[in-house]
């Protein structure tokens, strides 16, 4: 049996996604064995992010300032790539291919869970497009039902604004065999095929 403070740390750590009790226990004992400065620096980093992180007022990416570094950088301001979460933005940034701006919805539509358009940053997106200067909106919500429902809704309400609306392609995972792809993935990849 662990003492109160150890038990407490284990409980707190196991609240994090992907961390089960066993992992939390391992991390806790690792922290106990750590130099004090290292442990304090982890704790401070957590406090700093909670005290200083906020959403960019333009695109809802996470930032320390009013406007995020991507919105401030010299990028192609005529393109907006719409994603569900800030973590999706980070992955797309890592590809280095995309040079436009982003818009983070902070979720995806789900009728059965009551996640309606008002609960996401959709109105803010419409406003950005209405403000002008945007020629293309790329919808990069997740390739699942919630992401697809969101994509359809957004394209429906942006259509009257006369801009180009695109959806990232559905494809087969690279490195895999066609044989193992399910019928939906395969049929969507066929629909979205490219001329060579």
């Amino acid at each position, binding site marked *: 049996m662990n003492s109160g403070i150890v038990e407490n740390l284990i409980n707190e750590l196991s609240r994090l996604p992907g961390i089960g009790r066993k992992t939390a226990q391992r991390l806790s004992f690792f922290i106990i064995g750590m130099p004090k400065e290292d442990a304090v620096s982890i704790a401070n980093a957590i406090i700093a992010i909670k005290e200083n992180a906020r959403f960019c007022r333009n695109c809802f990416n996470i930032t320390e300032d009013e406007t995020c570094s991507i919105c401030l950088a010299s990028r192609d301001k005529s393109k907006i790539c719409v994603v569900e979460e800030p973590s999706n933005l980070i992955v797309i940034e890592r590809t280095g291919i995309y040079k436009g701006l982003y818009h983070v919805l902070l979720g995806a539509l789900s009728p059965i869970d009551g996640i309606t358009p008002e609960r996401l940053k959709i109105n803010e997106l419409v406003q950005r497009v209405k403000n002008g200067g945007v020629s293309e909106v790329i919808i990069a919500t997740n390739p699942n039902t919630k992401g697809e429902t969101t994509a*359809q809704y957004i394209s429906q309400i942006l259509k009257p604004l006369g801009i180009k609306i695109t959806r990232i392609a559905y494809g087969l*995972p690279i490195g895999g065999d066609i044989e193992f792809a399910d*019928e939906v993935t395969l*049929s969507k990849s066929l629909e979205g095929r490219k001329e060579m």
Partner: protein
Amino acid sequence: MLTKTESIVLKTRKYSEADLIVTCLTPDKGIISAFAKSPRKTRSRFGSSLEPLTHAKISLWGKEQSMPKITQSDIINSFHELRDNFHDFINMSKLSEILIALMPEAAPNKKIFSFFLSILALIKSSEEEPKDALFIIAQARLLAITGYAPRLKGCGKCGRKSQNFYPDSGAILCSKCASSQYVRLNEAPLKIADRTLGFYTHSIEWPIVTSRRLKPHKDTLTELSAVIDMHLKYLLNKKLHSSSFLAGTERE
């Protein structure tokens, strides 16, 4: 213990980093919640087989009393056409939500399973647009099949003819029964048009294919839909999420 069953996915909820908790309808276990490891990873072996409305053959692993784990899922019919159509998907979500709300967990009911499956197939094959009539008939029948249909065929107490629907009684009442001291009513009744009552009765008594041929007027559908929503609100003590969603997105 490993069990195999057919299933229709009703809803999914993210769990942990890449896992899902899947609520599904099965013929031999009723509505169950099961855990699936990593389906959200793009290379998951589950592929799209755990997306809502998918009809699949699944393998479940687990002890009784604890949440089972889905170890395998093979698509029988993906019904992805229903997810690709915004309007159809919201309406199907509403049917799923009604089912989850009214059907007790782990209560096997083969009739409900085949009903739900037949609705999916019917919506998929229908070329009508929008499919409002079909969805409202499906809602009425789902209420009837689960035993929660509002009683709209004459006064619910004495059978006398009346058009006044009292949501808190879940029934139409005649003026005599409504004023009786044994019925306590909190709200004014909703007067329902005769043709709406006729269409409702037909919808729950005849096969769907027959009812859809009736080509109900738009007002009839709007009225019946409002009655069903009001009835559900009383039954469940809350408004359905999908009803609010429909109301919010339909306006635009």
